[in-house]
Each structure stands twice: as structure tokens, then as C-alpha cells.
């Protein structure tokens, strides 16, 4: 018995269109006509068509083949990205099927990130919609360069050539700004199957390929093979003392034993000794191969480092300009530290400035203070350490990243690096002769930050004041940073929105850090409602230098005390964004010290704090 031929090649593409353009029907048609719909699925489809179908009695509703989740079937909408598979004699296809409704930006970006080509649906009766422009823009942003515009429902416009020609001309004019390498317009009817897989007599005036034929022949420029070699290290393979290999996927170029390579960000150079796989050593590894490299020298190398051609290294930087697509439910807060991940490479990143957002409809820049879910923006990012990278247009793996919220662990954004900021390369830290240790020694103390957090009226300032008095009396060099006082000076430009609160804490944390370097014991008394920012402050300092003190008093108690009359005002609606009332307070999960401020007099609580400092050898 002869084994039927295997498809040899793989194409990943994305389909997009507005709701009801016929996308599900079209994909169903592609599956159906490539005979991938099997009998049991077909009988389930007949059953479903009777129950949920929209194509009328007796007819198969091919859209139901691809609408996966029951919630979707009931509501008749597609919620998320779904992946479909079919193959012809020449190619295997992976289709990212993305929905056309409101959350399209987020889902489309996801689907487009791995796609090499896009099929954009246009309803012939409606011609180009705002949605078509949006989808084209997102496809272009995520780096897709080959696009087929499927002008669908040609049956409903009498197979009229002039209608098709008008849409094709309109699209060509619109798309000139998007940088696609190839655009083809194909008239089809997903409902009847004309020109989807089979050429159509109804469309005899059309001379180009059917949609399927185009999918089988499109040649995405994978051009990665002739680029310089790059491999991010995923895993250090060390089964014994005698073997140390670096496992990863080659993301550009090729490599052979003997090739000189550099390890980034350190910049150390060595050469490749072996390319190890379970099938034996290779003479060459190419882009997309998953291999394990053994290097000629003992070099210091960890997950997230990049091994690259020594003669053509990627840049290393800690500040970038990038496009961001916001995916999270909560908006972007400039200044808040997020985790950034480029493949296996991880760091902590803050958005320094949000330059503007971009209208997906017009592609024009719009002034913006924040990014909400599905917004696209241009920003500058600052990382806590330099990482190897390439612009996204050159390499998706070294230029594409995600941002992760450090509290919820949700993936909140994806981004594409445009370029590194020059200033990062040019500002070098000044090496100073008199350092922190020297200043601490001169003060004969262990500098640190006592960070008091808690609701307004919990007693932070009172406690900080009592503790400082005692330290001062005993000769320690101290400084107090109080929320209200700092807001009168350094932070007087800031209000009480979430974004401003983040910036408020960022500045105070930086000031506190400078004071620790000056050798002081710093008492910070700020509501500091968010865990993320307290964590940021902690990470600015060295291990043991940050003492978080949670001044824990129930809201009712604080509100009853109301020393400054603020709760009354907030309840009356005169103070928007007041912590505890209409703005959240996130209590610490692992504070060094929790003081129950409603249960004992302040003097006793201050004593507890002083005893703790004594135990820790601070004072």
C-alpha cells in the first residue's frame, strides 16, 4: 500500500473581518472542501445546523464547524482566537481565527504575532469598513507583509465585476501606507464556495488564483537564514561535571562548529565547539532549529542571554522606544514596574513616557495620558538592566516582548521595539570614591528605610514622628519624608489618579534611596496604596535595607478619627479617588512588621518598632 504524500511545507496565517462578513463560513468552507470534515463531525454539524444554523432549513451552516465554545454557539459570536488545521497536497496550514467584535485588537494581535500572511474579509455589499482598516493596521503593526483581501458574498451582488474592482482600487489606495509587500484581492462566495477552492464560472472575468491556490503558493519572506546568527538561551543543560550545553531555538541565521560567537549582554567572545542533538551532533543549525550548543570556553552564561555571531552582534540597551498594544483589563500606569519578557529574557520595565496613542481607525497619533484595553500607543521604556535586542522589523523574537503585571501575573501588553534610546548608551554611571559604605561608616549607623504604609488617619505620621524622636535623641542621623509635606514641594504637580499615585511613590522611593546612600535612616510615611509600587521601592534598595511597616487600622476606626476631616469630605463627594472610599488600598502580604494601630496607644506601638530595630541591629 502506498503512503499518501505528506505536505512538506507549513504556512501560518490569520483571518480577520467584521462580524458577519462571513469569516467563519469561509474557514468552514476551506476545511470542508479540503475534505477535512469527517463524517462524524458532519453529522454533528447537520444536527447543530438545525439547532443554531442561520443558513435556512436543510442547508449546512459551515460557520458552525469553527465556532468552538458553547457560549459562543449560543450567543452566535466568536470570543477568542481559535487555531484550525488543514492540509493540501503541498502545504499544511495553521489558521489563527480571530473574532471581529470589540476585543478584536487584543485577539488579533495575538493571532497575528505568529502569522506569516493574512486573509482580510470584506463584505461586497458593504465595501471597506472601518474594521477593515483597523485589521489592516494591526496586521501591519505585527509585521505581516502578505495580505489577501477576500471580497466575500459576491453571490449577493450578482457577481458584479465593477463592485469588486471598486473595492480593490479603494483598498490599494488605502494600503499604500502600511508597508505590505504583497496585496491580492480575490472575489469569493463563502456560502456557495465560488473561488474559495474551486475556480468559478460565475466569476469568469477574474483571472487570478482562487483563495486556496494563493495560500498554497504565497512565499512569505522568511529571509532569516541569511541574517547573522542569534540564539536566546532557554535552558542550561548540565547533566554532569563534563558537559555544559546551552539549549535554545535559533531565531536567525545559522551556525557551525568553529564559528566565533559573542555572549550578550556580557559581550564575552568564544566559539562554538559542538551542536548537540539526540540524533547526533550537527554540522550546521539553522533558523527555527531547537539545539544545544557547547562552547569552546567556560563562559558565564544563564537563561535569557543571547548567543550571537561575534562579527555582527545585536545591540544591548536598557531604554527603548516601542509600540505597545494594551491587553490588560486595568490600564497602563506609566512609572509602574512591570515584568518584561523577550522570549526567555526577563527584566523589570517601566514606561517612562507615553508619547501618544494611535487611532486604529485613522492611524493618526492622539494625545494620551494612559492606555486602556485594546489601545495602541508609542512609548519609551526603561529596564532595570541592559538586554540584547533587535528592532521588531528585523527580528520578531528579539524585538517582540510582553509585559506582565507583577501582582496578578496577567499578560497585560505586547510590544514591538522600534529602536534603542541613544541616551542609554551615553550616560555612564559615575564611579564615586566616597561610597555608601563610607558614608554609613562616618555616621556610625546602618542606613535603611522604614516605610510606613496604611490608610489615611491610621497613625503613620504619629508613629514615624515618635520613632524618629527616639532615634534622634540617641544620636542617629535620620530624616522623615511625609506624604503631605512632599506633596507641597517635590510632588506638587501630582494629583490622586492611579497614574499620579504611582509617580508619587516612584519619586519618593528614589529620594529615599538617595538618602540611604547619604547614610541616613529614612522614615517614609505615605499611604502608598499599591503593592506594585511598594515592591518597586523595596527593589531599589539592597537586601535588608527596606523595612515595610504596615500601620493596620480598620477603615471604620480611621474614618471615626478623621483628624483632617478628609473622610467627611470624601463621603460628601468632594474628594474623588480617596483611598479606602473610592480608591483601593492593597494591604502588604509580607510586611516586616504589622502594627495593629487600633489596639494600643501610639507610644506602645512605637516601642514595638524600636524593639524590632534593635533586634535587626539597626538602632
Amino acid at each position, binding site marked *: 500500500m502506498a503512503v499518501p504524500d*505528506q*505536505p512538506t511545507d507549513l504556512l501560518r496565517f490569520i483571518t480577520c473581518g467584521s462580524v458577519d462578513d462571513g469569516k467563519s463560513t469561509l474557514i468552514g468552507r476551506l476545511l470542508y472542501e479540503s475534505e477535512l470534515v469527517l463524517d462524524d463531525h458532519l453529522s454533528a454539524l447537520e444536527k447543530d445546523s438545525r439547532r443554531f444554523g442561520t443558513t435556512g432549513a436543510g442547508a449546512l451552516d459551515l460557520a458552525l464547524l469553527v465556532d468552538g*465554545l458553547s457560549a459562543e454557539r449560543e450567543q452566535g459570536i466568536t470570543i477568542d482566537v481559535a487555531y484550525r488545521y488543514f492540509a493540501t497536497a503541498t502545504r499544511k496550514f495553521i489558521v489563527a481565527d480571530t473574532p471581529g467584535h470589540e476585543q478584536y485588537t487584543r485577539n488579533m494581535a*495575538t493571532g497575528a504575532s505568529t502569522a506569516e500572511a493574512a486573509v482580510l474579509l470584506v463584505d461586497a455589499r458593504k465595501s471597506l469598513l472601518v474594521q477593515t482598516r483597523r485589521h489592516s493596521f494591526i496586521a501591519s503593526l505585527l509585521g505581516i507583509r502578505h495580505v489577501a483581501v477576500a471580497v466575500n458574498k459576491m453571490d449577493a451582488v450578482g457577481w458584479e465585476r465593477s463592485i469588486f474592482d471598486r473595492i480593490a482600487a479603494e483598498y490599494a489606495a488605502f494600503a499604500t501606507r502600511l508597508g505590505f509587500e504583497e496585496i491580492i484581492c480575490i472575489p469569493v462566495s463563502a456560502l456557495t464556495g465560488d473561488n474559495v477552492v474551486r475556480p468559478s464560472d460565475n466569476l469568469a472575468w477574474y483571472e487570478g488564483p482562487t483563495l486556496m491556490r494563493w495560500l498554497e503558493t504565497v512565499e512569505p519572506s522568511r529571509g532569516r537564514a541569511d541574517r547573522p546568527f542569534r540564539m536566546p538561551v532557554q*535552558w542550561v543543560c548540565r547533566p554532569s561535571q563534563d558537559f555544559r550545553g546551552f*539549549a535554545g531555538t535559533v531565531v536567525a541565521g545559522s551556525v557551525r562548529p568553529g564559528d566565533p560567537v559573542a555572549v550578550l549582554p556580557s559581550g564575552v567572545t568564544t566559539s562554538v565547539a559542538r551542536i548537540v542533538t539526540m540524533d547526533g551532533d550537527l554540522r550546521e543549525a539553522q533558523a527555527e532549529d531547537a539545539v544545544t550548543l557547547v562552547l569552546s570556553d567556560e563562559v558565564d552564561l544563564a537563561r535569557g542571554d543571547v548567543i550571537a555571531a561575534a562579527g555582527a552582534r545585536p545591540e544591548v540597551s536598557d531604554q527603548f522606544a516601542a509600540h505597545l498594544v494594551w491587553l490588560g483589563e486595568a490600564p497602563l500606569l506609566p512609572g509602574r514596574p512591570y515584568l518584561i*519578557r523577550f522570549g526567555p529574557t526577563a527584566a523589570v520595565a517601566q514606561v517612562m513616557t507615553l508619547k501618544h496613542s494611535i487611532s486604529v481607525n485613522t492611524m493618526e497619533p492622539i494625545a494620551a495620558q494612559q492606555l486602556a484595553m485594546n489601545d495602541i500607543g508609542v512609548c519609551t521604556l526603561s529596564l532595570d538592566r541592559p538586554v540584547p535586542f533587535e528592532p521588531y522589523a528585523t527580528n520578531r523574537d528579539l524585538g517582540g516582548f*510582553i509585559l506582565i503585571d507583577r501582582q496578578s501575573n496577567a499578560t497585560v501588553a505586547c510590544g514591538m521595539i522600534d529602536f534603542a534610546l541613544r541616551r542609554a548608551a551615553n550616560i555612564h554611571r559615575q564611579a564615586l570614591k566616597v561610597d555608601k559604605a563610607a558614608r554609613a561608616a562616618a555616621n556610625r549607623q546602618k542606613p535603611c528605610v522604614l516605610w510606613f504604609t496604611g490608610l489615611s488617619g491610621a497613625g503613620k505620621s504619629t508613629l514615624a514622628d515618635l520613632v524618629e524622636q527616639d532615634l534622634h535623641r540617641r544620636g542617629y542621623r535620620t530624616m522623615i519624608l511625609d506624604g503631605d509635606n512632599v506633596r507641597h514641594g517635590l510632588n506638587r504637580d501630582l494629583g490622586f489618579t492611579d497614574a499620579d499615585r504611582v509617580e508619587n511613590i516612584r519619586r519618593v522611593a528614589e529620594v529615599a534611596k538617595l538618602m540611604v546612600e547619604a547614610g541616613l535612616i529614612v522614615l517614609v510615611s505615605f499611604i502608598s496604596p499599591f503593592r506594585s509600587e511598594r515592591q518597586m521601592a523595596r527593589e531599589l534598595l539592597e537586601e535588608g535595607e527596606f523595612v515595610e511597616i504596615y500601620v493596620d487600622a480598620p477603615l471604620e476606626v480611621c474614618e471615626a478619627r478623621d483628624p483632617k476631616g478628609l473622610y467627611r469630605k470624601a463621603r460628601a463627594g468632594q474628594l474623588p479617588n480617596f483611598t479606602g472610599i473610592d480608591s483601593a488600598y492593597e494591604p502588604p502580604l509580607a510586611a516586616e512588621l504589622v502594627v495593629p494601630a487600633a489596639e494600643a496607644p501610639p507610644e506602645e506601638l512605637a516601642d514595638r518598632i524600636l524593639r524590632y530595630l534593635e533586634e535587626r541591629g539597626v538602632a
Partner: protein
Amino acid sequence: MEARTPHLRRLEAESIHIFREVAAQSTRPVLLYSIGKDSSVLLHLARKAFHPAPLPFPLLHIDTTWKFREMIAFRDALPERLGLELLVHTNEEGLRQGVNPFTHGSETHTDVMKTQALRQALDKYGFDAAIGGARRDEEKSRAKERIFSFRTVAHRWDPRNQRPELWRVYNGRIALGESIRAFPLSNWTERDIWDYIAAEGIPVVPLYFAKPRPVVRRSGTLIMVDDDRMPLNPGEAPEMLSVRFRTLGCYPLTGAVESRAATLEEIIAEMADARVSERQGRLIDQDQAASMERKKQEGYF
């Protein structure tokens, strides 16, 4: 000669990449091993991912006690053949209550002996990442599954609250008690699996190859009489037919197909002509529409 076509090589590399991400991002991963063909491929790819080091995680088999005997024999030979650590877990409480597919029906049996058993085992060993061999082409609700699929402390899957997954950047960050299910074979089809088994010479359970076996016909399905725990209906007598299995599970729940395909080449040729999907022989998917989706939400693989 290179037996893997370029498209199999791309699938292989992608799976290896996923394995390395799971191992690097989790503290206590485990490979869920179900003895079938997908598990055979999964295990083969795992070994490739970490070669020359041994697997950085153990294998876990959830034993319902109703697997085919040949499956268990294949499983038990594995640790020695490949030098691996294999854990086997059975829901002892379910066993004590005598839960079985005949008297309790396939739904209860699957829930108690598979879904609950899996949750028990994950909690018992404290695994924070479980690697499975599910493929997106198997079933509709799987088409939207992520490669790194986030599960709550209660092991639940929420299809509306999944992390967006871009490029090949996987977010495996979790809080204490939460976990990740990872699916390195997401983009493989049944055909790819067999082509790869043929190209790489991967051993699989002999039940996949046709041979005369004792079967009875029940509601249009051929059920193999694998041991004497199977109650026969009055007048029902096993007949010897040349059959094979396209998927393997609990024998009372797994339908055989009549076939003469006794070699890999014959299986692949037969599949190219096949007009029914592999899961059709699986009684558990047919209990009700959307049953897989519901089971997944409850923590089933």
C-alpha cells in the same frame, strides 16, 4: 536520509522549545503520561529537549484500573527501557466505592477516576506545571486552548480569562497553589503524529495495529473484551475480528475499528482515507454536546 519533512521538523522544534520553557519557568513540573500514541511522541520530544541530560521531571500516569492490559505492560516496561521515573496514581476512594464504567456510566467513571484522580495527584505531589499531549485538532473546545494554559487553585480552566499568548513567549508565572497545564503538541494533527512515529521509529502500544481480537458490538461500537470484569448481556458472545484502535483509553469506553492495517504504512494510508475522526470511538466525548468543554473547566485534561 532525512525522514522528517520540513514541516515535521518545524513542529518538532516548536515542541522542544515549549518543553524547555516549562522546565525553566516552573519549579515542579510533571509529564502526564497516558500510554497512547500522543504520549509516546510527547515523551520522545521531551527526551530530545533535554538530551544529553535526563528528563528534569517525572512521568505521571493516572490509572483508572480499566486500561487495556497491553497498555499497562507497555507502561511498566518504560522506566527500565528509557531510564525514567514513573509515578502511578489511582483514586483509592473511587476504587473503594467500586466506581466503574459499567454500573456508574462513563461520565461518573471519568469524573471520579480521571478528573478527580488527576487533581488528587497534582495536589499530592505539589506539581505546579503538568505537561500533556492534547492537540488542538482533537476537539472543538481545544481549538482555543493556550499552549501554556492557566489553572486556578481549584484546577479550573476559564475559557474567558486566558492569558494572551504572543509569538513564542509563554507566561508561566503563577501564585502559590495555581498551576499551568502545558501542551507541546498543540499544533500537531493526528496525521502528523503518525508520520512522526514512522519517521523516528517511536515504539507504540501494539493495540494500534490490527490483529484478531475478541469484541462485542454495543450501540454501533466495537468493544474489546479485555478481561473477565466485562459483564456480557444475555445472548452476547465475543467474536474474533481483525480490529485496531485509533485512540486508547479505558477499554470499556474505547471503540475499535475493523481494519487490516498491521504496519505503520498501512495505518497512515488507512487514515488518509478515513471518514471519521479519531475521537468518534471515544464514548466520553459523546455524553453530551460541549461535554469536553465542561470537563476541561472542571480540571480534566
